[in-house]
């Protein structure tokens, strides 16, 4: 059952379209992430859903309710949308205690004192801050403030939970800890959640599905697996993990696959594309799938020269050039014996790959 629906959302600032016509849906209980670089429109989208920005075009439904539509002249104020939100800067009120911060939304709903105390206690336990109820909000560390913010967003059981890059201000270790807690809590409570981040790893760890955005538009929607192994655009291939792009020209394209001329040969891919002969296409291959001096014979092999080599412990990075095309190779699980055979800068090496490890992208 879809629970959150966004149709054709457009939001402009002066003449620039920060959000340029996007649509997506979230299922009930789903953890959906908006992922993209700075300025891609993900925060603006979130804020439109929250009611902190007013879209110029488009509709947003939360549950069955139409909460905003310019064309139909509908706008529900943020305090009437039954949402919870966790901000990047935590937004904990310094003049209130931890208890008062969390109890605030319940007070606005005019609940009974006893009921408020019960709920706050429950939620403090959930975020592991039971002993902090009476502490002044200013005397908390970053991580603790973030938990209070989370508790405050959860205490009144909103329909949808919004997260605006909540972990960016925490240090690396705390970030990992907090994201696990967020994920566990969300799963336990089953609240539909929309999360915004620019950190690909974070998005992968938390989400059921990810919406990759760039320059106000959606590039691709999918689960982490499909985004990593089947990127559909160059942007997604580059933004998610790392990849090499080899430019080529389509020779033929039919139900048996696609034939591409690249690196001086004709390569067959099983992937079916709707491209025409003569069109330019990019072969995207992740660095861990390019083999360096392979033992057996690979379907396609090329000679190249090492430009730059970095040995990093159990892995190594090799920047090579094959017919002036840069190819970047990553080797994992290097053992002591391998060290003797690792190529150095200036060496000529053989590089190979299998077509099934590649993705053809327009």
């Amino acid at each position, binding site marked *: 059952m879809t629970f959150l629906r966004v149709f054709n959302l457009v939001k402009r600032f002066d003449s620039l379209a920060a959000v340029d016509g996007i649509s997506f849906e979230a299922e009930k209980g789903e953890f959906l992430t908006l992922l993209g670089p700075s300025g891609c429109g993900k925060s603006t989208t979130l804020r439109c859903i929250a009611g902190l920005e007013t879209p110029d075009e488009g509709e947003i439904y939360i549950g069955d309710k139409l909460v905003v539509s310019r064309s139909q002249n509908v706008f529900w104020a943020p*305090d009437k949308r039954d949402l919870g939100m966790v901000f990047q*800067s935590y937004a904990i009120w310094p003049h209130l205690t931890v208890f008062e911060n969390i109890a605030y939304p319940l007070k*606005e709903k005019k609940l009974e004192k006893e009921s408020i105390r019960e709920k706050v206690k429950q939620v403090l336990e959930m975020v592991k801050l039971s002993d902090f109820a009476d502490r002044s909000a200013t005397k908390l560390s970053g991580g603790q403030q973030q938990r209070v913010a989370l508790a405050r967003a959860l205490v009144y059981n909103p329909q949808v939970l919004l997260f605006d890059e909540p972990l960016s201000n925490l240090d690396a270790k705390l970030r990992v800890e907090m994201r696990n807690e967020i994920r566990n809590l969300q799963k336990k409570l089953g609240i539909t959640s929309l999360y915004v981040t620019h950190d690909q790893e974070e998005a992968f760890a938390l989400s059921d599905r990810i919406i990759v955005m760039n320059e106000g538009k959606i590039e691709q929607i999918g689960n982490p697996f499909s985004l990593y192994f089947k990127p559909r655009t160059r942007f997604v291939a580059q933004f998610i993990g790392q990849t090499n792009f080899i430019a080529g020209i389509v020779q033929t394209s039919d139900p048996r696959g696609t034939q591409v001329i690249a690196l001086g040969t004709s390569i067959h891919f099983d992937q079916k594309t709707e491209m025409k002969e003569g069109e330019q296409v990019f072969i995207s291959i992740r660095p861990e799938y390019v083999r360096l001096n392979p033992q057996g014979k690979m379907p396609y092999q090329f000679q190249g020269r090492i430009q730059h080599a970095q040995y990093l412990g159990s892995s190594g990075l090799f920047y090579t050039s094959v017919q002036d095309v840069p190819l970047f190779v990553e080797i994992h699980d290097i053992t002591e014996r391998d060290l003797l055979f690792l190529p150095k800068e200036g060496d000529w090496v053989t590089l190979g790959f299998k077509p099934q490890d590649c993705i053809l992208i327009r």
Partner: protein
Amino acid sequence: MPKRSWNLPIVVMLAAAAVASFLVLYPLGYLVYGSLRTSLPGDPGALTLNNFIEAFTSHKILPSILNTFIIMLGTTLISCPVGLFLAWVTTRTDTPFRRLLEVLNLVPFLLCPYVASVAWGLLLSPQIGLLNRFLMELFHLSEAPFDIFSIPGVIWVLFLYYTPYMYLFILGSFKAMDPSMEEAAQICGSSVGKTTLKITIPLATPAILSGCIIVFVHCAGIFGVPAHLIMPKGEYVLTTTIMRFTQVYPQQYSAAAAVSMFLLAISALGIFFQRRCIQGKEYITVTGKAYRPRLIRLGKWRYLTLAINILYLLLSILLPYGILLLVSFLNFWSGDISAELLTLNNYHQVLLEDEAIIRAIRNSLFVSIAGGFLCLLMTMLVSYLIIRTRIKGRGFFDYLTMLPVGIPGMVIAVGLLWAWIRAPMPVYGTIWIIMIAYITRYLPYGMRAFSNSLLQLGPELEESARICGSSWFATFRKILIPLLKPGFMAGWILLFILFMRELSTAIVLWYSGNEVISVQLFQLVRDGNFPSVAALSIVQALIIMGGILFFRWIVKEEFSEKIR
């Protein structure tokens, strides 16, 4: 289904902005109008430049322009190096007690310069000045060495009073300077003294220049000091000339308007240059972090720097208020002090008997407390409109409310005089017109106080409250107001002090019954009643001190940080 519509908060804010704009534009408009027309508003007349011609060919106008410029230049040239020196001493050297000195150097801000000029008159009048007589005896002189009733005298008093302005500007710059700039110079081989001269001071140049222009411009608009020290001798400056035009019979309001326009032009030009000067050269020394700069060890010399700072404080605070305190306990002032003349009668008069004075004290308190509050209320709403909303055209309100920075108080008052003289509302002649003039004059101060606070708070604190279910008004009440309270109180203290001290604005709008303390002092000086003057000055100073202590007790914030 709830629809989008004009919401009440926006309407309230726009109303406040409209009122603020009206306050600024109305007197200005009338001033321009009055200076260019042949008759008073409401009477038939024509456009003319005659007023300007008459005003600027009138008797004594050219000397008054010259005097004004001499005073502006002289004061700026002296207060600049002294302010720089004091700032350097308190932030960059190991002078003892420098933390205390840092705060004390700001005390002259609280004092009314007019009162200071009266006090220095008591000290350095050529015949009976106490300090003169003391020096004459000490050095066996036949004539008094100093005559304060002269243009150099005016420069002296103004320098003592305006040095804290320079000091504050440069202090801010020094404190925010990244010490690694100086450290880099020292590693390159530059001695401490050379580093100060070649790195530290040049980096503070925007602040120094800025401070100089502000002092320069303010001197043009000062009334009390030249009125007391050189007007009795027949020497005028622009402000006293304007006053004269409004006080003679028949009143020459048009000439007053013309000269006011000239004064306005000088101020506006100065502020324009000050803005340009800051924009171009904002060296990236101010990063927002507070640094601990390296201190220069002065060795024995640090006692000298301490002595110089103490001397400054002596001359600007202790001597003038000392003599006032003394004279306030005397029966009459003739230059002699003897035990038989001691009395509490003056205080009795000032606080309990003289109705006019008591009324003046009441008026001052009313205007300063209520006027300060209203000004802040208005600027709070306008600041919120400018900073937190995206209403088109809000930049216009920002510009307009900061405009009074470049308008001397007397100019506003003359404009108001014109505006209200034929106005349907009977505001002219009441205490309300004084309050309106003060609020208009000090709008920029209120705006500064709130913009800083609001910018620091960040919008998320309110946004999260909205998401949690608070309406706009509930958020304003429960989240914003408690967080803005320290800024509000600090702004209120500042306005309280500024309103209590103000003279040049009130003197033009003075009418029997709406005197404030500063105007009452002016009248008492005219009557030659110095003991009462002294007593009332002390009372004024005590009220200001009391106000500060009261507000500090409520807020417990660092005073010197807020004054900026």
